[in-house]
């Protein structure tokens, strides 16, 4: 039982073990923070897929899938599918209402023609609409000047229906960052520029599309004025910055994907016009499908492959259907959202594993630190080892003191590290905002503390001892440096590391990866113990007679 007493006293009576604990804690925190942010990023990418596109996407770009309603009917009969919705996907130019004057800005946007009702069933569209009356819960934390406090229900309803109720016209819902007038605040909320003057739902925009002919050539551009009815905020910057939603039938019309007649110009009808020989049905470039609860996207995808083949076979035999759906593989793809984004997700997964491996080298740092510190402690405690041997302590008993010491440092370091990582990860957006706009008070505190440190250095150093002077100077310079960095950052407008245009999301993931946390903790403890083995063995081998004469 003397081990516990001695370990406790060796730990609490000197600074070195605290440095070891701090070093292990920093190593652990480093690994957990890096891997948590990367895991969080991957999770956000995956989750956003479901929010934005449902679980499985059947797509045939440009010319689209004909008779998609029949496909959707078949899909919705599947027990694995919850809902399906058609989408027309293309690119267009959006003439914005700003700036004042005749020359308006034009943005390139990805146009999504959607059927709002079924689209909301497949994706999280309803939740992404930004302008809406706040809930009771939101009101508690919402800033006083947040314009959403003044919102009425109609703006949300108009967004959901993609229709302007005042003018009874089809409306458009662009992403929140399409308009440069929307400023994102540090709390994540949006303030339209000029005190709400550029609040988009009170303006109109002009959308211009370039329809493509069946043969591949460009047709005449189509333009249409839309009232903005709401804006959506999915959190994925690349989407919020580029996409705009319009009603499906209008998008189909503007892109010439709507229903038309097929004529034979060689034959004339009774009126002398080319004879109508069939109907060219409306088309959708994508059908998004949501899996039923508990159904994996891969499972649903397999079912959809069969459904599509059956749908195509049915139409191939239908003599009334002049336009047949394309076979799979010929530009038509049926993929889960993750498969569709594989080129994007897989490199991130690989990078995360690489980071995990590289940062795992910090375990060796843990082991090295503990080894170096314990080696020094064993030297310092050589005489104690001799004394303990003289009163009957066994060699194993002596080594156990140091192993136990390593264990305690590993566990303490791991726990402190996890705590530190948790605090950093949970508050990572606040920390990042502070770096973007460093608070002045922090600089003042740093510089004031530096003055105190200088005063203490002068006071304690007046006898000429080097230790207080060195320590005091070190602390003073660090504090002055930190204060100066804050002032420089302030002067230059701060640093933005997490640039949403690079990292896709407007906020940094702030969920701690508990699996990594547990593994890192166990790793730190094991490697601290490994670091303690060598000094412990050395302690056990110490010759008690020499140890007693050791000075």
């Amino acid at each position, binding site marked *: 039982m003397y081990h516990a007493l001695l370990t406790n006293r060796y730990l609490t009576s000197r600074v070195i073990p605290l440095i070891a604990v701090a070093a292990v804690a920093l190593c652990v925190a480093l690994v957990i923070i890096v891997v948590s942010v990367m895991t969080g990023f991957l999770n956000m990418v995956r989750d956003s897929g479901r929010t934005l596109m449902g679980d499985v996407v059947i797509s045939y770009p440009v010319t689209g899938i004909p008779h998609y309603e029949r496909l959707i009917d078949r899909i919705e009969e599947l027990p694995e599918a919850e809902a399906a919705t058609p989408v027309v996907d293309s690119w267009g130019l959006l003439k914005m209402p700003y700036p004042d004057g005749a020359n308006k800005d034009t943005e390139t946007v990805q146009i999504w023609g959607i059927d709002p009702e079924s689209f909301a069933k497949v994706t999280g569209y309803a939740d992404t609409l930004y302008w809406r009356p706040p809930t009771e819960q939101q009101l508690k934390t919402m800033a006083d000047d947040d314009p959403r406090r003044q919102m009425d229900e109609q703006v949300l309803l108009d967004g959901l229906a993609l229709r302007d109720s005042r003018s009874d016209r089809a409306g458009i819902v662009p992403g929140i960052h399409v308009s440069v007038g929307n400023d994102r605040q540090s709390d994540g909320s949006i303030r339209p520029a000029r005190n709400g003057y550029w609040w988009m739902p009170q303006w109109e925009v002009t959308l211009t599309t370039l329809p493509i002919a069946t043969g591949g050539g460009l047709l005449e551009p189509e333009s249409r004025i839309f009232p903005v009815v709401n804006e959506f905020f999915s959190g994925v910057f690349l989407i919020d910055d580029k996409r705009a939603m319009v009603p499906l039938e209008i998008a189909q019309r503007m892109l010439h994907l709507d229903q038309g007649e097929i004529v034979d110009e060689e034959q004339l009808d009774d009126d002398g016009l080319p004879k109508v020989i069939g109907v060219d049905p409306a088309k959708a470039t994508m059908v998004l499908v949501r899996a039923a609860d508990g159904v994996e996207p891969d499972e649903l995808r397999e079912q959809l492959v069969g459904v599509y083949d059956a749908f195509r076979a049915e139409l191939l035999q239908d003599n009334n259907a002049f336009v047949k759906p394309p076979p799979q593989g010929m530009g038509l793809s049926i993929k889960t959202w993750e498969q569709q984004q594989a080129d994007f997700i897989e490199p991130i997964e690989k990078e995360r594993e690489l980071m995990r491996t590289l940062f795992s080298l910090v375990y060796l740092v843990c082991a090295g630190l503990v080894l170096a510190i314990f080696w020094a402690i064993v030297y310092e405690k050589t005489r104690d080892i001799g004394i*303990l041997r003289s009163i*009957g302590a066994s060699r194993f008993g002596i080594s156990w003191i140091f192993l136990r010491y390593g264990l305690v440092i590993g566990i303490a370091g791991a726990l402190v590290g996890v705590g530190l990582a948790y605090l950093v990860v949970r508050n990572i957006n606040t920390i990042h905002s502070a770096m973007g706009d460093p608070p002045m008070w922090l600089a003042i505190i740093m510089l004031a503390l530096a003055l105190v440190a200088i005063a203490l250095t002068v006071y304690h150093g007046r006898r000429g001892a080097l230790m207080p002077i060195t320590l005091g100077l070190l602390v003073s310079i660090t504090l002055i440096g930190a204060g100066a960095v804050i002032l420089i950052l302030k002067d230059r407008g701060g640093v933005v590391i997490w640039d949403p245009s690079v990292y896709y999301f407007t906020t940094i993931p702030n969920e701690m990866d508990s699996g990594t946390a547990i593994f890192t903790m166990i790793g730190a403890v094991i490697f601290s113990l490994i670091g303690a083995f060598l000094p412990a063995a050395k302690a056990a081998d110490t010759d008690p007679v020499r140890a*007693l004469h050791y000075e």
Partner: protein
Amino acid sequence: MHKTYRLGRVDVPVLKGATLHVKPGEWVAILGPSGSGKSTLLHLLGDLDQPDADGGEVRFDGRSLASMSRRARNLYRNRSIGFVFQFYHLLPELNVLENTLLPALVGLHRWNYYRRIGQLRKRATQLLESFGLGHRLKHRPRELSGGERQRVAIARALMNNPKVLLADEPTGNLDEATGAEILDLIVQQHRDGLTIVMVTHDPAIAERADRVVHLHDGRIAE
């Protein structure tokens, strides 16, 4: 017993056939000049070191230490003997009471700790009080005088009621008056029946022992 140390490439024989018998309850003083091997002899008796191969043996209660298991020898150092050193050798991080308790803690099994710790604390406190250190229980060694430290060291040596006290110049680092106090304490223990083997180079101290042996050139002479 024979004991040779190797210093670099040179063998230095320290003990060259020293033989010593100590009877139970006897106080033997080993007198000799510096470097004569007195401390080495004491270390061999206390199992801190071993004689050369074929260099004799230490027998305790008729049993050779060399024939004992490691565990039995740890127990021998813990229970049967008590060491007192010239430089006290207290653990600086522990207070007076903890230093005294240490041999008991070393010998105490984990399962018996909570059952016996109260009783052991009581014994250590009584020992220290009888040595006039009742007011110093929570003090660290650096807060004590040399005499007080040596009294703590003796209390520690006696904590497990050993049969033999091995004392290596116990007054060598103390002034005359303090040294006399420490010696009185040892005399008292001897009167209570403790066997003592004491190494000294001071004939005046050696005179108080039952028997004085001289260690000269690695051999014992009565």
